[in-house]
């Protein structure tokens, strides 16, 4: 099941700095936690077996992203 139209504005404001577990059937928040592990466990407890995770950043910055190769170290 795929999430469809999603506006995260209110969610991120309310749950800033946490992991959010969404129910893909209705886009509703079913759990929040400080780790994906806990968020998934909480979601499973309320009957959502395959939650969708996203992280609510503390600051919602504009992104100009590019991941560049650096120096591999071993």
């Amino acid at each position: 099941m795929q999430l469809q139209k999603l506006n995260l504005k209110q969610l991120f404001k309310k749950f800033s700095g946490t992991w959010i577990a969404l129910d893909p059937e209705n886009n509703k928040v079913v759990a929040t936690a400080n780790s994906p592990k806990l968020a998934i466990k909480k979601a499973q407890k309320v009957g959502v077996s395959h939650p969708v995770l996203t992280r609510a950043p503390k600051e919602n910055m504009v992104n100009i992203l590019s991941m560049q190769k650096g120096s591999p170290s071993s």
Partner: protein
Amino acid sequence: MTQTIAMTFPYKEFPIQYTNPLNPRKTTLLRPVIQIDFESKEGGFGYLALIDSGADYCLFHGSIGEQLGLDVKKGKALSFYGTSGKQQIAYFHKVRFSAAGKEIEAMVGFSYQINELAFGILGQEGFFDQFTITFNLNKKFITLN
């Protein structure tokens, strides 16, 4: 003859800070973010990830790697430069995930230094090499073929 099926995904709307001088009236931006899915010992889960043609590799949060049962910091370390311009480290592991109904196995970087991102990053290796991707921002959808 192999038949490929195109799947369409809507752009997702993300909040931006109010002080953005480029769009002072805008409080949200559309981003090509899709759901990818993992299986793990503790159950499957979805994860939001940005389709980023400027990224060489896929990059996910370190804690997602832990959920997949990885000893994240034992992966092959690679330095990269993120939005801040600061050098960051990702630890690469071979993982499986699915996107648009397709199973993908790829070397993916996991980083503990991307907590200010709401999503993972889907880059050239491991994602763009798996699909033909069409971005249509005007119509607010992405097609993976």
